[in-house]
């Protein structure tokens, strides 16, 4: 397989703005080209669009808007992990030799139809994500004797991190008591435990080793890719207090990269709701089962930005199709030492965790300098 790296990126602020999906997509791609004048548009072999928006033919539309005539152009939808699925597709095109350079652009509007999986009738009338999040939270608290206050610290930490991220939706910090006192959505989750749907876009260029040298002197390599789908339906999850798909995907990705979890210096994990962060930390092996909140507390108290330095989904907002790409951009910036106020010291290996529909499927990427 050809070696594949990240050569360039562009991102927009995450907002509640009412904009056309085509405009949002264009904005992050425009930013990417503005930041990287060495990219020759006619050398882009493929344009992949990641979104849950119902508009059709968006990759050719984006290509035409940018003045690109790629060999391949198509959309990729897989609910909340559409973004990393597009990156994996781009990786595959380049690794196989079908393409040398691929533009991946993800975007979503605040009113994305990707929040609800209509097909999943096993959930009865409880199809909104707040219901699976409540079941996860209830199950996790029961299994490991964890309190609402311990989980609330995830939101406190990630809103705090987001204040160093100019593109984040969150513009405020909160206390544990603020989270507990925020609107009660169900018995087990409060409003501030939730990531918020928003409008935003993120674009990234992946390229082969030969091509990447022409574009950047700071390439970041995709050294590990792991994916696993357990089911489509939430109720077929093997457990409601652990992320089985994430465990499988992590094992595959780390093995491919020849790394151990201890080698990872910085990670973006999919904190769709507060409970998801400790569950993800446990699934990727950074914490023992039931001890994820202990690590969250330690990181918060020592001001260690290692997990979700950009603010995670809770701090940044969650424009579904853009999220996995935005996570990957954050880890790229960290490894390039370009993350400004969010910078982790000595970041050499990073990890991205992006999941869909209550962790019924997960993607893990390992990135290296």
């Amino acid at each position: 397989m050809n070696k594949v790296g990240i050569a360039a990126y562009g991102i927009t602020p995450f907002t509640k703005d009412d904009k056309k999906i085509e405009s949002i997509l264009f904005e992050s791609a425009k930013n990417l080209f503005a930041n990287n004048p060495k990219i020759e548009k006619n050398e882009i072999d493929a344009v992949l669009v990641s979104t849950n928006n119902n508009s059709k033919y968006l990759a050719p539309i984006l290509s035409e808007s940018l003045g690109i005539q790629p060999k391949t152009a198509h959309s990729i939808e897989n609910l909340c992990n559409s973004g990393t699925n597009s990156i994996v597709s781009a990786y595959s095109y380049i690794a196989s030799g079908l393409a040398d350079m691929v533009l991946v652009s993800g975007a979503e509007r605040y009113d994305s139809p990707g929040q609800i999986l209509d097909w999943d009738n096993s959930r009865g009338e409880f199809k909104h994500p707040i219901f699976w999040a409540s079941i996860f939270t209830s199950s996790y608290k029961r299994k490991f004797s964890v309190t609402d206050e311990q989980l609330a610290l995830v939101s406190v930490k990630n809103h705090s991190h987001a204040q160093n991220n100019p593109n984040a939706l969150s513009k405020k910090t909160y206390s544990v008591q603020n989270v507990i006192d925020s609107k009660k959505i169900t018995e087990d989750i409060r409003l501030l435990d939730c990531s918020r749907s928003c409008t935003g876009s993120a674009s990234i260029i992946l390229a082969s080793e030969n091509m990447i040298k022409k574009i950047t002197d700071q390439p970041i390599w995709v050294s590990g890719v792991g994916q696993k789908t357990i089911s489509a339906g939430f109720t077929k999850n093997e457990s409601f207090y652990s992320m089985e798909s994430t465990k499988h995907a992590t094992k595959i990705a780390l093995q491919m990269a020849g790394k151990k979890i201890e080698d990872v210096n910085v990670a973006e994990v999919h904190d769709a709701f507060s409970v998801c962060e400790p569950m993800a930390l446990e699934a990727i092996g950074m914490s023992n089962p039931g001890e994820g909140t202990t690590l969250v507390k330690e990181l918060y108290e020592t001001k260690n930005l290692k997990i979700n330095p950009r603010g995670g989904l809770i701090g940044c907002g969650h424009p579904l199709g853009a999220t996995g790409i935005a996570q990957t951009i954050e880890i790229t910036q960290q490894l390039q030492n370009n993350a400004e106020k969010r910078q982790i010291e000595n970041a050499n290996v990073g990890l991205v965790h992006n999941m869909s529909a209550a962790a019924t499927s997960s993607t893990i990427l390992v990135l290296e300098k």
Partner: protein
Amino acid sequence: MSFEEEISKGNFLIPECTVCKKLVWPPAEYCNDCMGKTTLKEGNFQGKIIEFSKQNEDYFCIVEMEDSFRIIAKITKEPRIDQMVKISKCGINEGNYFFEVS
């Protein structure tokens, strides 16, 4: 008769594979194991509550039916983990199935 025709009348039937006898969920015309044709099985099916939460005054719970598959159902009284229940009401409302257990 189809699963949806029956549930819309308030009847909870479970598809069973005519070849390997596996209960097939979510409802489908063919078995997701051996691909055999399914038929709807009637019965006084048992469920067990394995997790629950609450929104306003309503509890919602994960119910494992017949030690086989799980649904999310409403329950009016405070549930207990491992409580045995049966479907007391079901149907289709605005395109979504609904289940209530007691």
